[in-house]
């Protein structure tokens, strides 16, 4: 093992929450290192900023619905964070997207009104802040919709999407475009790289234009470019002379890769370090403080010491929290206590797939400042937090942005003074 590396703060986890915490710590002047086992949730999710979509009925305005939501879920991360913190984090995020590495690419929207965007199966899904490339899919718009698919992309089925949109009251139809591909199994990433190529894109637009009717907006699977999505999207709108929007589909998520690139670049430009392929395998403690963590990666093992740690390694989804075959649940990263577990002997899961599962809200136990119970210099962020069911609530990115920002703010405010001195 190499010698210990010293930072002001070490962030564990490279999903949205971890990258936001790292970037904001770096912007605040901290020497920060983000350790991540691999790329995280960004590459799987649609990359819309979902703040509050369901409670349990569809939420029209996240800011308007927040007070009642928090009152009904007092253990939810939002009960600690509050609407203002979410709004601030969203503003920060939008500004970083604007200043980010993808020229011209923007996010639109705020917490006052949810967009209602089509999913690949044709349901309508509420999201507060969305990539510009998706915004024209909003159900409030009056144009008819033409959903465009290609048989070469197995991960998107335009006919089913359009048929379900029609059932939801949106005038929609579908068309298929033939695309020549070199091998049969293509995903959205392969097509995104093709869309980045102006000649390929022009040919695609030419073929598509012939199939469109007047006054239709065009919905395409979310694959409109990886390097220059703004250029690809605006070029398609110009060539087709109508609004064009992306519809998120199965992973890998192209808009998610863009989001990862934006956050990674923000972190690095602010002087932060990102180490990918560095799984935290053990931690040193001194009393109620974590003093260092060790990582294992291909070339070497390393130890990272810091006065502060942000735990943003995710929950069951990433493997950071594990339920083992003896039905015991652990935080595999730092071994911290958990909260939200079903009562001893109670059911962990129930037989109805679409019901809320008793294990759904498990996370690392935290205090009123989102510090881990039993580790006063560890702040918890993102899907590691207990009390939320983000995939059902439509709250994942709202929690990630706000809790990542909160963690950074707390660490910066407390730095200088020894951690825990205030307690």
């Amino acid at each position: 093992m190499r010698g210990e590396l010293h930072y002001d703060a070490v962030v564990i986890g490279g999903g949205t929450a971890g990258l936001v915490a790292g970037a904001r710590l770096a912007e605040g002047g901290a020497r920060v290192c983000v350790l991540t086992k691999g790329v995280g949730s960004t590459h799987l999710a649609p990359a819309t900023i979902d703040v509050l979509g369901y409670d349990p009925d569809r939420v029209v305005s996240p800011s308007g619905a927040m007070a009642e939501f928090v009152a009904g879920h007092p253990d939810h991360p939002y009960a600690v964070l509050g609407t203002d913190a979410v709004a601030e984090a969203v503003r920060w995020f939008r500004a970083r997207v604007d200043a980010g590495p993808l020229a011209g690419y923007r996010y639109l929207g705020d917490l006052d009104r949810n967009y209602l965007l089509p999913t690949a199966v044709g349901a309508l899904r509420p999201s507060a802040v969305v990539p510009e490339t998706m915004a024209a899919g909003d159900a409030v718009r009056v144009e008819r919709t033409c959903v465009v698919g290609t048989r070469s992309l197995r991960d998107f089925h335009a006919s089913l999407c359009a048929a379900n949109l029609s059932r939801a009251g949106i005038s929609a139809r579908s068309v298929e475009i033939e695309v020549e591909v070199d091998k049969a199994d293509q995903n959205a990433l392969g097509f995104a790289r093709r869309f980045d190529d102006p000649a390929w894109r022009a040919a695609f637009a030419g073929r598509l234009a012939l199939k469109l009717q007047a006054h239709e907006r065009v919905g395409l699977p979310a694959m409109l470019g990886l390097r220059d999505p703004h250029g690809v999207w605006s070029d398609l709108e110009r060539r087709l002379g109508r609004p064009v929007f992306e519809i998120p589909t199965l992973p890998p998520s192209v808009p998610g890769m863009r989001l990862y690139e934006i956050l990674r670049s923000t972190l690095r430009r602010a002087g932060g370090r990102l180490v990918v392929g560095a799984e935290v395998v053990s931690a040193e403690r001194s009393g109620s403080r974590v003093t260092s963590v060790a990582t294992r990666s291909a070339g070497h093992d390393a130890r990272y010491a810091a006065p502060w740690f942000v735990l943003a390694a995710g929950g069951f989804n990433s493997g950071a929290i594990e339920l083992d075959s003896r039905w015991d649940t652990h935080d595999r990263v730092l071994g911290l206590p958990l909260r939200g577990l079903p009562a001893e002997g109670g059911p962990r899961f129930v037989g109805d797939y679409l019901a809320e599962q008793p294990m759904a809200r498990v996370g690392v136990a935290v205090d009123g400042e989102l510090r881990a119970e039993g580790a006063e210099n560890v702040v918890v962020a993102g899907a590691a937090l207990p009390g939320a069911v983000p995939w059902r609530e439509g709250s994942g990115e709202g929690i990630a942005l706000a809790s990542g920002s909160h963690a950074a703010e707390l660490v910066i405010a407390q730095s200088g003074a020894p951690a825990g001195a205030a307690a």
Partner: protein
Amino acid sequence: MATLSTDVLVIGGGATGAGVAWDAALRGYDVVLVDRADLAEGTSGRFHGLLHSGGRYAVKDPRAAEECIAENRILKAITPDSIEDIGGFFVTTPFDDPAYADVFAKGCRDTGVDCEEIDPAQALREEPLLNPAVSRVFRVPDANIDVWKTVWALARGIQERGGRVLPYHAVVGIHRSGDQVTGARLRGAATGEEIEVEARVTVNASGAWAGVVADMAGIEGVRVLPGRGIMIAMNHRLVNTCVNRCQMPTDGDIIVPIRTVCVIGTTDVNTDDPDDHTVLQSEVDAMLDDGEKLVPGVRQARAMRVWTGVRPLFEDSKAADTDSRDVTRAHALLDHAERDGVQGFVTITGGKLTTFRLMAEETVDAVSKHLGDERPCTTKTELLPGSEDGTTYHLGERLSRKEARLADEQIVCECELVPRWKVEQAIERRATTNLDDIRRLLRLGMGPCQGGFCIYRAAGILHGLDGLTADQADESLLHFLRERWKGVWPVLYGDQLRQARLDDWIFQGILDVEHLPAVEAEAVTS
């Protein structure tokens, strides 16, 4: 109402019923095969996939062992396409009585089950994950058999000979004219439409449900005790040989590798209801502990799915002497002319998958007598459709086909390497909108992601084919998710829970299937 007329009506589309219909069709009889659900959706589709060598019964039930080894050889010859000839081990672990090994070897010799003792070191070279403390190892000709493939091959064979196969047609009444059973009334599950079947002989091949069907014919005392057993599929093949504990048959003493998974089985609990699919946590725990005895570390591997099957254990209340429990494992053929004075009705129940062909042969021999027109059985030598080239299935078969067609064969299900054209062909051939039917036919969604990626694709393909509405496609998607979850949640831990959470994100997050128009409408009306 539609009316069909046939020589032989077979009630029950498991391996036994399909085998009976195939045998009768080969003898030149006109047949109709019906099941209340999909073919092999009951007991046949709910076992571990073992084609017995007979070793398991060599000591306890020599006659069953003799039947098994004979049928093992016949099935390998007539339906190799469904069988992977992987061989089996009987191993003496530290948990087994060491004295049983010699008794076992003698039992195999006496019953003609091929059995060769091998050096445990050799067994460990072949199966490195096997418990290193095994002291004796015997090699036997166990194999695995894909029962859905077998039953659908039988169905194709029946149809090619003019027989009719009607899954999703429940028997709602059996007709009697005096002491003669004359057929049955069916109701189609999809449409509710009823069909009258006039049959010269009706065969009750409904396994664990045989008592219920016999009751419908007004025949009393056919008692079938459903014996419920659980099986757990692990997400890959921890072993490539069927591994059995060398002891008297008991719970949790076998691991069967089949296709991309291996299955730990099984338990045996008497139940009153053949549709009882309860899985108790204590059973799961016991099964994993038993798995550890054969392959230490099983608990660190991913358990993917658990299911229950019900064995039909026959108890004839009319029999003079009460059968012992050991004997009830054998199959029972009841000719109701002899037993009850009722003509035109035969019940076959009990038995095991390995002997389905033999059961069918004996049944159709009896049917033949009823028809007054005895014809010889030819199922011992007739190849099933799909097995004409005589080669057995091998594990790399789907991958090698895919490798050869990288440019033009789109894969819908990566776990099980199911290409798109197969899905399209299955939908059209089966005329089904039920993705669960496609799953059984092609193993679509049976791998580690449990449909996480392929089921949206398959629903899209379903919808894209002519004539299917969005609500049918949505319903099929949701039905699949609900059915899948039943087998997933009782064994959900470790990395499989991670996988399930990704699937939750896909279906409840990215796709938001819960808020599809139909589901919302349902929620409002309920």
